[in-house]
C-alpha cells in the first residue's frame, strides 16, 4: 500500500509543481498579488507531497517490502537498519526522489524565509524552482518510478552494493545534493532577475546567503566523499580526478567564484551580469553532474546502471534548462547596466582574479572530463584524460589563486596600493619564502612541489591570522579593546577568515601527504615486524570471522613506538554474502597529524599475507580543513545581515511598484 501512496504523492507533487511554475510567474507579470503568493503555498505543498513519497519509499525499504522492485534490487532483509535506510538513495530511482525532496525543500525555504525579497522577484524565483521540480518529477514518473511493483514477490532482495554499505554513504549524497540543489536557488534568482531585466545591489545581497549555504554543504559533501574513498577504496588516495568527482568539483569551483562575485555585486554594484552568468553556470554544472552519473556516457565507480533512454530525458531537461537560461542571458544581459568603477589593483580586482582563476580551473576540469567523450563522438578515437593532465593544468591555477586570496583582504575597494599592502605583509612574505626555502634546501627530497605547497599554505594561514590581528588591532590596542573589537566583528568577516585559513590547512594536508608519504609493501607472516616512520608494526595473524551479512579475513597488527604499545589495528578483506562481492577495509590509526594506514592483501606463500603499510603525514588536515571551510560558511551565514528572513529595510531603489495589488 505504501508504494501506491508514494506513487500518488509524486503525481500530486508534479501537479503542484506545474501550478507553482505557472501562477506566480503569471502573477509577477500582471502584478497580481494573490497569484504571486499562491506560489509559496504551492511550493510548500510540493514539499509536503515529495516528503510523503520519500517517506513511503523509506518505509518500503525499512520494512523490506519485496513487492517493490526497487527494494528487491537494492536491499536485503539481512542488512542492518542503517543501510536499509541509506539504501533508499543508494540507487538511481531513490536518489532522484531525494534530489527532488531537497529541491522542493529549497523551493519551500524561499517561500518561508524570503519575506525580505521583493514580492515580484520572489514569485519568479519560486516559479523557476517549480519548473525545475516539474522537470525532475516528470523524469522520475516517466522513466524511473521507484514504486514499481514486482510480481511474483521474491523471497529476498539482491542487496546493496557492499562498498556503499558504509556510514560515509549515509551522508555523502544528501550533503552533496544539498549543495548541488541549493544552487538551484541562485539559478532561479538569476533567471528571475533576467526576466525582470534588473539586477541591483539588493540582488547580490539576496543571493549571497543561498550561495553560501549551498557552497558550504557542497564543500562538506565533497570532503566526505573524498574521506570515504580514502578509507574505503584501500590504497590511501583521496582524490582521483574521477569524472564524477570532477562533476561535483566543477560546481564547487564556479560556486566559489559566485560567492565572491556576489560580494562585488552587493558592495560595489559591479560584476552584475557576470554574477548572473556564474549563478546560471553553477547550477548548470550541477545538472551536468546529474547527467553524467545517470546517462551511462561515462564509466566510473559512481555511475548508476546505464540506460540511454534516461540519458536522453535528462539531456532534454538540460537542453531546456541550461540552453533556455543561457539564451535568456544572451538576450537580456547586454542591457544590464554596469556599476561601480574600480582600478585593476583593488579589492574588486583581487576578487576578479579569484573569479577568473576559479572559472578557468572549472573550465580545465570540464575540458578534461568531457574531452574523451567529444573525441570519441567525433570518431577520432579513444583518449584518456587522467591525473597527469589535471595536475599539470590545475595546480598552476591554484597557486596564484592562493596568493591573491592572501592579499585580497588587505586591499581596499576601488583603488589600492599593492606595494603598500605587500609592505604590511612583508614579515609574512619573508616567513613564506623562508618556509619554502627550508623545504627545498633542508628537506632531503628537495621537492619544488612541496616547497610551493608549503609556501602557499603558510601564506594563506599567515595572511588570515594577520588580517584578523589587524582588524582587532592586536598588540596595538589594549587587549581588552582587541577582544571587544573581535566580538563586534561581523560574523561574515569571521567566516571569511576561517574559510581562507582553512584553504591553507587543506593545501598543507595535500602537499604533505603527497610528498612525504612512506609506503611499505611486503609479505608478512605472523610474528613479522615492519618499521614505518618510527612505528613498529607487528603482525599477529589472520582470523576468519562472520559478521552480519559478510565474511571477513581479519588481520591483527599491533603498533608500537619505542617499545610502547599504542594500538591494535584490524584491517579486513570482506566478502559480502548475497552478491559475494569482495571489499577491502583498511585499518587507520590517526593522530590528527598523521595516519598509519594498513591494508591486508591476499595470502602469499606459506602462511604469509601481502601487507601494505602507509604513513600519511598531515593527511587528516585535508578533511579538517574542509570542515573548517564548512564552518566558515556557516559562521558567515549567521551574520545578522545575511540571516534569511531577518526583517530589514529593502535596499532596492525603485521597488515601489504597485505589485501587491
Amino acid at each position: 500500500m505504501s508504494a501506491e501512496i508514494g506513487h500518488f504523492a509524486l503525481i500530486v507533487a508534479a501537479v503542484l509543481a506545474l501550478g507553482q511554475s505557472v501562477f506566480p510567474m503569471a502573477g509577477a507579470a500582471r502584478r497580481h498579488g494573490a497569484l504571486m503568493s499562491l506560489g509559496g503555498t504551492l511550493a510548500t505543498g510540493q514539499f509536503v507531497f515529495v516528503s510523503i513519497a520519500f517517506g513511503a519509499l523509506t518505509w518500503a525499504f525499512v520494512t523490506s517490502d519485496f513487492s517493490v522492485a526497487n527494494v528487491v534490487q537494492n536491499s536485503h532483509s539481512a542488512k542492518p537498519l542503517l543501510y536499509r535506510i541509506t539504501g533508499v538513495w543508494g540507487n538511481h530511482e531513490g536518489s532522484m526522489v531525494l534530489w527532488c525532496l531537497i529541491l522542493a525543500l529549497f523551493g519551500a525555504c524561499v517561500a518561508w524565509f524570503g519575506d525580505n525579497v521583493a514580492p515580484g522577484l520572489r514569485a519568479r524565483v519560486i516559479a523557476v524552482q517549480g519548473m525545475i521540480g516539474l522537470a525532475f518529477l516528470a523524469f522520475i514518473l516517466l522513466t524511473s518510478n521507484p514504486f514499481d511493483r514486482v510480481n511474483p514477490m521474491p523471497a529476498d532482495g539482491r542487496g546493496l552494493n557492499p562498498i556503499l554499505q558504509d556510514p560515509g554513504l549515509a551522508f555523502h549524497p544528501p550533503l552533496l545534493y544539498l549543495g548541488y540543489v541549493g544552487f538551484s536557488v541562485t539559478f532561479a534568482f538569476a533567471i528571475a532577475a533576467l526576466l525582470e531585466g534588473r539586477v541591483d545591489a539588493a540582488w547580490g545581497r539576496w543571493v549571497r546567503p543561498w550561495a553560501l549555504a549551498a557552497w558550504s554543504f557542497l564543500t562538506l559533501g565533497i570532503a566526505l566523499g573524498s574521506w570515504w574513498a580514502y578509507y574505503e577504496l584501500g590504497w590511501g588516495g583521496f582524490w582521483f580526478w574521477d569524472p564524477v568527482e570532477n562533476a561535483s568539483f566543477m560546481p564547487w569551483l564556479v560556486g566559489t567564484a559566485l560567492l565572491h562575485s556576489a560580494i562585488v555585486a552587493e558592495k560595489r554594484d559591479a560584476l552584475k551580469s557576470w554574477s548572473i552568468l556564474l549563478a546560471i553556470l553553477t547550477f548548470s554544472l550541477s545538472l551536468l553532474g546529474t547527467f553524467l552519473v545517470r546517462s551511462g556516457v561515462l564509466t566510473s565507480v559512481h555511475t548508476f546502471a546505464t540506460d540511454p533512454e534516461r540519458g536522453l530525458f535528462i539531456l532534454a531537461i538540460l537542453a531546456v534548462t541550461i540552453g533556455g537560461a543561457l539564451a535568456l542571458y544572451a538576450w537580456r544581459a547586454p542591457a544590464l547596466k554596469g556599476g561601480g568603477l574600480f582600478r585593476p589593483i583593488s579589492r574588486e580586482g583581487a576578487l576578479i582574479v579569484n573569479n577568473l582563476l576559479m572559472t578557468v580551473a572549472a573550465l580545465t576540469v570540464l575540458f578534461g572530463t568531457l574531452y574523451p567523450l567529444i573525441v570519441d563522438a567525433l570518431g577520432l578515437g579513444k583518449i584518456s584524460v587522467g591525473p597527469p593532465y589535471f595536475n599539470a593544468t590545475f595546480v598552476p591555477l591554484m597557486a596564484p589563486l592562493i596568493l591573491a586570496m592572501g592579499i585580497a583582504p588587505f586591499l581596499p575597494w576601488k583603488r589600492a596600493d599593492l606595494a603598500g599592502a605587500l609592505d604590511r605583509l612583508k614579515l609574512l612574505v619573508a616567513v613564506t619564502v623562508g618556509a619554502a626555502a627550508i623545504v627545498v634546501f633542508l628537506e632531503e627530497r628537495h621537492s619544488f612541489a612541496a616547497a610551493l605547497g608549503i609556501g602557499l599554505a603558510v601564506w594563506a594561514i599567515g595572511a588570515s591570522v594577520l588580517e584578523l590581528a589587524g582588524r582587532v588591532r592586536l598588540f596595538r590596542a589594549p587587549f581588552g579593546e582587541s577582544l571587544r573589537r573581535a566580538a563586534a566583528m561581523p560574523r561574515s568577516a569571521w567566516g571569511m577568515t576561517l574559510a581562507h585559513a582553512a584553504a591553507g590547512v587543506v593545501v598543507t594536508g595535500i602537499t604533505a601527504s603527497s610528498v612525504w608519504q612512506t609506503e611499505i609493501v611486503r609479505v608478512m607472516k605472523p610474528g613479522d615486524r615492519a618499521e614505518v616512520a618510527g612505528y613498529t608494526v607487528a603482525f599477529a595473524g589472520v582470523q576468519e570471522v562472520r559478521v552480519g551479512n559478510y565474511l571477513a579475513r581479519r588481520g591483527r597488527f599491533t603498533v608500537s613506538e619505542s617499545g610502547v604499545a599504542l594500538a591494535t589495528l584490524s584491517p579486513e578483506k570482506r566478502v559480502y554474502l548475497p552478491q559475494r562481492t569482495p571489499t577491502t577495509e583498511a585499518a587507520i590509526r590517526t593522530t590528527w597529524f598523521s595516519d598509519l594506514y594498513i591494508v591486508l592483501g591476499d595470502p602469499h606463500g606459506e602462511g604469509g599475507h601481502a601487507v601494505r603499510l602507509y604513513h600519511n603525514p598531515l593527511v587528516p588536515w585535508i578533511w579538517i580543513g574542509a570542515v573548517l571551510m564548512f564552518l566558515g560558511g556557516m559562521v558567515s551565514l549567521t551574520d545578522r545581515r545575511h540571516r534569511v528572513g531577518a526583517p530589514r529595510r529593502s535596499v532596492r531603489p525603485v521597488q515601489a511598484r504597485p505589485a501587491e495589488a
Partner: protein
Amino acid sequence: MPSRRLLYLAPLAVFAVIAAAAAFYLQSGRDPRLLPSALIDKPAPAFSAPGLEYNGKTIRQGVESTSFKGRITILNFFASWCTPCLVEHPQITALSKTPSVALVGINYKDKPADAANWLARHGNPYARIGVDPAGEIAPEFGLYGVPETFLIDRVGRIRLKQVGPITAQVLKEKILPAIEALKK
C-alpha cells in the same frame, strides 16, 4: 555593439556544442567500454612461446612469431579458467577446419595440468599452443584479458582483433569475411 552581443552568446554556443556532442554520443549507442586496437595493420610483435607440456608429454609444439609469414594465422589467447573461452570454443573449433588458415593458441596464465584437462574434455583444435604462464606475451599484443583473437595476414601483419568471445554471429559477420578478404 555587435561584438559585445556576441560575447554574451558565447556561453550558449559552448553549451550547444557540448549538448550536441552528448546527444550524438547517446544516440550512437556506442559502448564506452569498446576499444580500438593500436596494432591493426602493424606487424605482429616478435615473441617465442614454449609448447604446452604436461606429464612429460608435449601436447602441442610452441609458437614463434616468425612462423606467421607465408600463411594466414588465427592467434587465440585462451585459458582453462576463462568462462567466455568455453563459449567461443565451438567457433574456434570451426575455425580450425577453415582451409589454408593456421589456428594457433596462446595459453594465458594457466597451469599446464588444467589446460591439458580442459583441452582433453572440450577438444583441442589448435595446431600449435604456446604457453604464457606469467602473462609476459599478452601485453606485447595489447591484451586486455582472455579470450582475445588476432587475425594475422601472410606477411605477418595483424589485420583484425576480436576482444571477448567469438560468438557464432561474430564468426559469421566479422571473422570469416575478413579471412576471405585476406585469401584474395
